[in-house]
């Protein structure tokens, strides 16, 4: 593959978005966990919960700021590196981004300052409200971003306008209630909740292994495990929902994830493992689970899922249909004051396939000049590279089931074994900390890489979406981002580790005194329910 401006811009997007996504999942989940802890504090008035809120809140703050800072890059990069994309779909795609600012980001950013600075300035309930507003704002942010992203996967509620040479919105509610966006939203925020739960459990386990901050750590694990278990179930089930909606909108992505070259008689089997061979279009040494794919993908025993080869044939038909639309488009544009009705009718009949004609722009300036070989090559281009998708997906799903098992175990120990955790489990929890980040990055990769060669599925090819920039400019900014982000990452990790090592340092005397009283009370009532001491 030739490495040009398109590949360089994609690399820059991948680097900056994957970096941004190191901070987002933790923000999503930790904001809620912190708000839950503060809720317990306000309800029970026990100082330990305020200390937990402040401690995890501090780590939340260190992480949050980088999520905010790197998020700005994402919003600006569309205009900087992807200006044709911005022109072509801004009418639809820009709206959720602006809504995100109006509805969500203002909320979280305005109140996050008060969360840290307002402990003495607000009543308890007032401060709790602020904590929840930050959590709600963060999660609303994710909703709007995923509505925007969902539209790229499944572009509903819009049509092409030949007069403005762009997609324009026809139905806002279709964009809003896009099934792909809804499934993605719940899947993504659940992934964030799992990430935060694993983080909280892992850090707390590290304290328990060193016999430090035991009261804070045991309670934190309990909250994390309960929240994490629910979220881990949700992330897997909603991931399945994403798969289900992919069968409606992105058949090629689904077939590529499954390395399903041929259409299989329903219900199709699921390839558990195997070695996809793109050249030969077959999967070597596949281990199949009969029926599973058909059941997951279509929830029926009779609906067929098309394989890659059939989808390529469909793409070829759509390229030919797109060429008819393209020819009519030139006519419509040239005679915009007096377009013949017949030409307009031809255009409208084929305009849904216009994007497929643009796939030829990679080979020829004027798609109408394309040869038969080029049309065939463009149809082949609609298949993303299969093996990275195949393996990334399987690793992500494996991790997902791993989270359910771990969370269930910690939940069981916390609920039924008096918050006592065996040392091997604690070691495991510490080592597991990076796992949810790996799973989240893989999930992002499957969703976005699987959409190639399109930026907007079936509408706009990636190769056409870039700005008219020189390689030097994009290389300069890419180098800038890499250097800059590396430094920030080292600083961020350094601070995180410093404050984790330091442990909770606010309200120490008051909390320790309460812990002492609380443990004395428990010792005095040996057979009583361990948790049930009266509120202060």
């Amino acid at each position: 593959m030739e490495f040009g401006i398109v590949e360089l811009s994609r690399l820059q997007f991948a680097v900056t978005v994957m970096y941004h996504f190191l901070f987002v999942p933790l923000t999503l989940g930790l904001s809620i966990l912190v708000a839950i802890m503060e809720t317990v504090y306000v309800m029970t008035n026990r100082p330990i919960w305020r200390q937990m809120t402040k401690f995890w809140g501090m780590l939340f703050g260190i992480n949050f700021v980088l999520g905010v800072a790197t998020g700005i890059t994402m919003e600006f990069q569309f205009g900087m590196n992807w200006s044709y994309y911005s022109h072509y779909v801004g009418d639809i795609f820009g709206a959720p981004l602006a809504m995100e600012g109006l509805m969500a980001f203002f909320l979280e950013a305005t109140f996050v300052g008060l969360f840290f600075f307002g402990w003495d300035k607000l009543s308890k309930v007032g401060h709790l409200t602020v904590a929840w507003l930050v959590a709600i704002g963060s999660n609303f942010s994710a909703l709007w971003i995923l509505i925007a992203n969902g539209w790229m996967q499944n572009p509903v509620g819009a049509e092409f306008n030949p007069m403005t040479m762009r997609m324009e919105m026809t139905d806002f509610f279709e964009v809003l209630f896009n099934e792909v966006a809804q499934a993605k939203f719940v899947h993504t925020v659940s992934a964030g909740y799992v990430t935060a739960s694993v983080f909280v459990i892992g850090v707390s386990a590290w304290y328990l292994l060193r016999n430090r901050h035991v009261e804070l750590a045991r309670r934190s694990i309990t909250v994390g495990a309960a929240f994490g278990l629910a979220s881990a179930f949700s992330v897997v089930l909603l991931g399945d929902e994403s798969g289900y909606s992919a069968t409606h909108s992105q058949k090629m992505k689904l077939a590529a994830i499954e390395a399903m070259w041929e259409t299989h008689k329903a219900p199709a089997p699921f390839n558990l493992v195997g070695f996809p061979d793109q050249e030969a279009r077959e999967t070597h040494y596949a281990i199949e689970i009969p029926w599973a794919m058909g059941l997951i993908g279509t929830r029926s025993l009779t609906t067929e899922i098309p394989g890659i080869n059939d989808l390529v044939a469909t793409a070829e038909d759509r390229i030919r249909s797109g060429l008819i639309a393209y020819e009519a488009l030139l006519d419509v544009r040239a005679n915009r004051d007096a377009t013949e009705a017949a030409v307009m009718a031809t255009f409208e009949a084929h305009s849904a396939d216009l994007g497929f004609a643009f796939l030829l722009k990679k080979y020829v300036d004027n798609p109408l000049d394309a040869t038969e070989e080029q049309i065939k090559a463009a149809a082949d281009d609609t298949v993303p590279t299969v093996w990275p998708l195949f393996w990334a997906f399987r690793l992500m799903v494996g991790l997902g089931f791993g989270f359910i098992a771990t969370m269930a175990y910690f939940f069981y120990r916390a609920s039924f074994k008096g918050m006592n955790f065996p040392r091997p489990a604690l070691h495991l929890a510490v080592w597991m900390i990076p796992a949810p980040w790996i799973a989240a990055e893989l999930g992002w990769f499957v969703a976005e890489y699987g959409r190639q060669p399109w930026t907007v599925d079936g509408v706009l090819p990636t190769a056409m979406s870039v700005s008219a920039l020189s390689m030097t400019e994009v290389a300069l900014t890419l180098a800038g981002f890499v250097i800059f982000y590396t430094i920030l990452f080292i600083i961020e990790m350094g601070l995180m580790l410093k404050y984790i090592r330091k442990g909770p340092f606010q309200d120490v005397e008051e909390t320790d005194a309460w812990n002492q009283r609380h443990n004395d009370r428990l010792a005095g009532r040996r057979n009583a329910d361990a948790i049930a001491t009266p509120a202060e």
Partner: protein
Amino acid sequence: MILHELITYDVLRVIWWGLLGVLLIGFALTDGFDMGVGALLPFVAKTDIERRIAINTIGPVWEGNQVWFILGGGAIFAAWPPLYAVSFSGFYLAMFLILAAFIVRPVAFKYRSKRDDPRWRTTWDWAIFASGAVPALLFGVAVGNVIQGVPFQFTDDLHTIYEGAWYMKFIGLLDPFSILAGVVSLSMLIMHGSAWLTLKAEGPVQIRARAIGSKAALVAVGTYVLAGLWLTFGIEGFRIVGDYVTNGPSNPLHFEVERTPSWLSAYADRPWIAVAPLMGIIGGLLTYLGLRAGREVSTLLVSKMAILGVISSVGLTMFPFIMPSSSDPQSSLTVWNSSSSHLTLFIMLVATAIFMPLILMYTAWVYKVLWGKVTEADVSENSHSLY
């Protein structure tokens, strides 16, 4: 959906042109003093305690303020997609510098006081200074370029092409007029930052802020007047010619544009717009007096008035142009040819009408909760909870 037909397309476009101004002004009024305080930091605060006082005056609010910038970007994307596409890729390296500043600044605020090492803190102090001063200057430079026209043109498919070598897209921005515009913007935001510090700080920080700010106010007024004269006599304007419709499809190639001797003909057509530059000049002079006299609340208000006047004078003078093209005037972006569709503008207007008042309400509440001065006692007693 037919509801959107309630407001005609051309009216919606003018409303969104106004809202674009509201967002830019909202950004300059709020995040403007953050940038100003950043640019002032090494000069108004010498000791660590003084620096922490200055930083903590904006500590709890900069995050919300920065959202004006992000919302501005999002709103341009949603309401003016061609403007977003052309300006962000056209000012590529300048955009990257602004972006870098807006990434470093939050981190610097948040991380500076998390270690006691003086070298660590000094490094972040310089980061705060640069990330305040550089964008404050560059925003003005960008406006100076937009006024003179930017060298871009559209292909038939509406791809944007820029003229000249890649480095000219950055070096070429720095012509004398644009640098002058940059000085206007930098000095104006330093003035605004001083007004904020006068309100929120006391002691040596406040005294130094007033001294520097009053000079900045005079520089801002002086350079603004100078730029106005230059605009009158030295810079060509743009004009749409021929028959055109204001509610047609957003396609610049459907319009004919020619150069005019000066932008100032706008003041002959619409004399009332002279209110804007007058507000800018009078506001700047009042801020000078306010800072000298040590008035607090009223100085911040007149400083806001100056910013409101200066920014709106640019928009009103250029109307209906938003981003003219110097190399191919026909490609110029105007209110009539570079908006989103009728439906999108309407939906975004409904959303803005609902949420903007809410935002203003809770932002006002937060400022009210945080009302009062940041004192030396505050920052030395709360070394953990404050920055």
